[in-house]
Structures are given as structure tokens and as C-alpha cells.
């Protein structure tokens, strides 16, 4: 297998007296989908925030393409090619897909010596990038507000990929979606992975993770419970690990094994 794009070694993070993360190791290979699972409060968000430059780790090291990396801001991470699609997406519903796609990175051309927004180019790129991920837009000028939740996720993902993401961190992209939209987003993740991007897929839904994941890392109370390959694990084991083993067992008993 090829070299990891990003490697997080023994990452620890303390907020005052609270130990949010301790000794977490994690890496992402190009073209794989590495799922980060964990219950609420397990430290998933803190962990991806250290990866995307929001938090500085208290201990541990980050290597990017083999070189030691010291992230000081989210901007740094974006420049390196570590893109994060957060749950709130950073999309503006009233603006067109193209205007959202290029927000902050508008392509320009010179008209009579003055630089103007190159709408034609922008529309074309937007349509192409969306098509690559399997979404045929009615028009690049349609407002993002008219898109479904899944399509919005796809726009955000396509935007990150277009602007050079090598590692794409998706923070619970399926948590607010219905069944069909979820399957579309999972299909999108699959396509992005095939483009050679390393995907970090954060979720607490084991079924979603199993559907696209190549490797799985489970966090529990700020510690990693290990990383497993796809062929080494079953959904039930993952589910139990996430819930911390015994607690789920009692719960399962009372629910008659429906969880």
C-alpha cells in the first residue's frame, strides 16, 4: 500500500484539566475511506479539529506526506489540502450553486483591463464537478436553497475536491439526511475516494460506515479502541465497541435486539 497522506501519531489534547484526547493515532491513505466512529462525546470533533488546524494538539505529532506538520490555523490546513466539510456546510441558500461553489475563490478574467467574475467559466466548472459526483444540476444558476440536503453536501464536497483537497474530512455528513439522500452521499464518498482523495468519514452510524469504509477507527472517551480493516470486523462488533461493550449489551436485552 502507498504512503499515508496524513498521519496523526499519539495525539493528545487537554482543555485545562479535561483530557479530551489521549494517545490517538490515525492515518489516511490516498483513495481510502477511513471511518472515525464514536458516540457523542467520544472526542471525534476534537480530533478532526486538530487535524483541520482549529486546535493545536497538546502532545503528539502530525505528518503530512511524510513531513512533520505544524498547523496553526484552518487556513494552513486548507492550503496544505486538508479540507473539512462541516455539518453546517458554509453554503448560502439564496445564492446560486456557482456563486456558492466559488465563494471566496472567484475566477476572474480581464474585460477592458478590469478584472471581472468569469461566470461562464465558473458555471462550466461547477456543472462538470457536480457531474463527476453524479449530480446533474438543472442549472448552475439555481439557488442552493432549492437543492436537497444530500445535494448540498455534494456541492460542499465537490467544492473541497475542486480546490485541491487531498484529505477530505466529512463531519457527520449523513446525520440529518433521509434514506435516499444518505445513499447518494455515500455514493459521492465512493466517487471521491476513487479520485484518489483520502476521505475521513465521521459518523456514529455503523451501517453508513460499513457501506463505504475501508478502515474503521473507534474512539471511546478520548481514547482509540484500535483500527480495523473492513474484512476484520462486523457491524455488531463495531456497534459494541462504540457503545463501550457491556452497556449496549444490557440495552440490547431490554430492546429485544433491535438496535
Amino acid at each position: 500500500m502507498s504512503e499515508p497522506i496524513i498521519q496523526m501519531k499519539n495525539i493528545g489534547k487537554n482543555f485545562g484539566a479535561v483530557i479530551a484526547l489521549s494517545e490517538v493515532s490515525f492515518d489516511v491513505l490516498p483513495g481510502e475511506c477511513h471511518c472515525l466512529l464514536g458516540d457523542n462525546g467520544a472526542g471525534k470533533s476534537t480530533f478532526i479539529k486538530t487535524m483541520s488546524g482549529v486546535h493545536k494538539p497538546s502532545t503528539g505529532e502530525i505528518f503530512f506526506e511524510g513531513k512533520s506538520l505544524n498547523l496553526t490555523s484552518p487556513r494552513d490546513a486548507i492550503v496544505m489540502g486538508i479540507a473539512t466539510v462541516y455539518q453546517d456546510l458554509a453554503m448560502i441558500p439564496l445564492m446560486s450553486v456557482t456563486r456558492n461553489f466559488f465563494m471566496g475563490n472567484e475566477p476572474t478574467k480581464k474585460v477592458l483591463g478590469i478584472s471581472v467574475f468569469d461566470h461562464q467559466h465558473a458555471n462550466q466548472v461547477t456543472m462538470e464537478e457536480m457531474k463527476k459526483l453524479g449530480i446533474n444540476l438543472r442549472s448552475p444558476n439555481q439557488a442552493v436553497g432549492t437543492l436537497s440536503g444530500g445535494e448540498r453536501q455534494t456541492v460542499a464536497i465537490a467544492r473541497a475536491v475542486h480546490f485541491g483537497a487531498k484529505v477530505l474530512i466529512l463531519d457527520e455528513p449523513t446525520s440529518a439526511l433521509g434514506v435516499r439522500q444518505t445513499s447518494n452521499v455515500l455514493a459521492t464518498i465512493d466517487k471521491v475516494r476513487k479520485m484518489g482523495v483520502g476521505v475521513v468519514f465521521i459518523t456514529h452510524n455503523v451501517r453508513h460506515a460499513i457501506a463505504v469504509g475501508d478502515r474503521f477507527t473507534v474512539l471511546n472517551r478520548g481514547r482509540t479502541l484500535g483500527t480495523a480493516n473492513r474484512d476484520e470486523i462486523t457491524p455488531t462488533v463495531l456497534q459494541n465497541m462504540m457503545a463501550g461493550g457491556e452497556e449496549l449489551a444490557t440495552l440490547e436485552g431490554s430492546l429485544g435486539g433491535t438496535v
Partner: protein
Amino acid sequence: MKNDMTSTTPEQPSQDERVKEMSGFRKALIRPELGSICGTVVVFFFFFLTARDAGMFSPQGVMNWSIVSSQFIIIAVGACLLMIAGEFDLSVGSMIGFAGMSIALLSVTLGWPVWLAIITTFILCLAVGALNGWLVIKTGLPSFIVTLAFLFILRGLTIFAAIASTSKTIIGGVRDVAEGDWLAPIFGGKIFTGFFQWMGDQGIIETFERGTRKGQAVVEGIPMLIVWAIILVIFGHWLLTKTKFGNWIFASGGDAQAARYVGVPVNRVKILMFMFTAFCACVFATAQVMEFGSAGADRGVLKEFEAIISVVIGGALLTGGYGSVIGAALGAIIFGVVQQGLFFAGVESSLFRVFLGVILLLAVILNTYIRRMITGEK
């Protein structure tokens, strides 16, 4: 997992199967200008029927409502871009009074050259605009409150300055001192005067039959006020729709946090838009002072609301992020044509305010409906 979700696979149709049903009518509705285009047509049609005989569409009549509309347009362009960027400026009216008084005091009372008075005033206004914007950004208060404070501060200062220096609230004599000045005609002059005189001589338009101006055309030329209005509309529309900065204006008003997240300099955009609004108010004031030859401490009262109403009639959302400069200009034309048209039609002028209130209400209701349609809110 299917990797082909295009419409060629009917068993897994693409996500937009439902929104695809959007009719052409609904599509047209979400263009911000639509309401104001219809409004303009209706208004012209109405007055063409009712006020044509009163001379509303004679050269003089056209010039009359064009000037009034142009005044509204000038301040509406500024208010429009600012509103799309997500902020309000309620100090526009007071800024007009302040700028006019500043020009008159500096040139007439202090004896400065008029061009210097005008340039100094523009710098002052831009500084106040920047201060407005800076306060809004730094305090995080609604711009409504911050600029409401400046509505009173600027008006008070204007009256105080006029009374303290000349013990009058109206300062005249600007026209005399502006004689021969190079900058004043840019605001108070007229263009194409030769062409209009020629049209008068040829009998295409009427000429004065008696009096001191006998033989001159009834319309001397196109006032610079109208030229400014046209330039500002073209500039504003171009800036908003054709440039990178325009995208930032939409983004700042649509969702400032999301815009910041992708690197849009939201603070800079908003402060610049406050300054642009101040610039527009200053253009209005300068043209008015040059036309009247005087400045009054009470000039521009309620202009901020007239600007905002024009913008709202033009289809912009009060909450920001959506709107059109062309729409705002049409809103201003509706405003001007109705105000003058009622006069030509001989309707009691107080009814104008009733009309204004009604059309404002309708516009806001329509805009809210359109917003729901775009964003899919219920």
C-alpha cells in the same frame, strides 16, 4: 451503491425530480426585478391614461419626473448594495443635510473654493460612512441602531453648525460662488444643451414664447443629476453581478459566518458598502445644493426611508443576501413617477403616502413569499 444517478436510470431518479417541476412562471418570479418591472409598466400605463393631457409626457413633464426619480435612484443604489450586504443605513437623510450644509458653509461662509469644499465634504461623508460601518462591525450591534444614532447626531450637528456660524438654517449664495468653478458643473450642470437648443430651433420641442428666455428650448439639457443616476446604476449593477466583489456582497449578506469561513473579507465588504452609501448621499446633496444654490439644515428628511422603500419595491430582501440594483432603480422610478404623476393628475398629494404604504406592504409580502420559495422554508 449505484454510481450513475443521472436521469437515464429511472429506477434511481436524480434528487431534483420534484423541484424540476418548477414552472417558467415560478422561475421568473424568483428574479428580484420582476415585481418592479411589472410595477413600472402598470404605473406608466396608468398615468399615460390619466395624466397625459396634463402634460406629464411633454418634454418638461418627462424632465420633471425624471429628475425626481433620479434623486431616488441615486440614494437607492447605495441603500440597495448595503442592504444586499446585510445592513441598513438610516443616516442617509441626515447625511444629505449634513453634506449640503458642509459645502455651503465651507464655500460661502468660509470662502473656500467650491471644488475644495466639495472634495472635503466627500471625504467627511466617506469618513462618517466608514465610522458607521466600523461601529457596526466592532460592536456587533444591528446597523439599524448604530445608524439611527447617526440620524440624530448628523442632523443635530448640521443644525448646530448652521445656527452657530450664520444664525440661519438656510445658507444661500452657493450658485454665485460656484460660478466658473471646475467641479461644480459635474454635479449641477446640464449636458447636451446645444442639442436641446437645436431641437427647440427645429421645432421638435417647444420653446419659450415670451419673457427673458424667449426662443430658448423649454428643456435646456440633461441635468447631471440624471447622468449620475445612470452612472451609479450601471456601476452598481456591474459591481454586484459581474465582479468578484459582487459575489462577496451577496455572501456577506446571505450568511456572514459562512462567508468568513471560506475566506470572504466580510468586514471590509460591509464597511465599504457603508462608505458607498455615504458617497451616494453626498452625490445627492451636492447636486441638490448646486441646483438650488442653497443648503438647508432640514434637507433630506425621511430620505433614508424613501431609499429603503425603493430598494424593497425593487425586490431586495430586508434580511440581506438577495436583490438587484436594476430592481432598486425601477423601484425608485415607480416612486418618482407616482409622486409627480399624482400631481399632474390633480390628485390630492397626501394620498401619495397612502399609496406608498400600500405598495411597501405588498412588496414586502411578495418578497417574503419569494424568499420562502427559494430557500424552501415553510
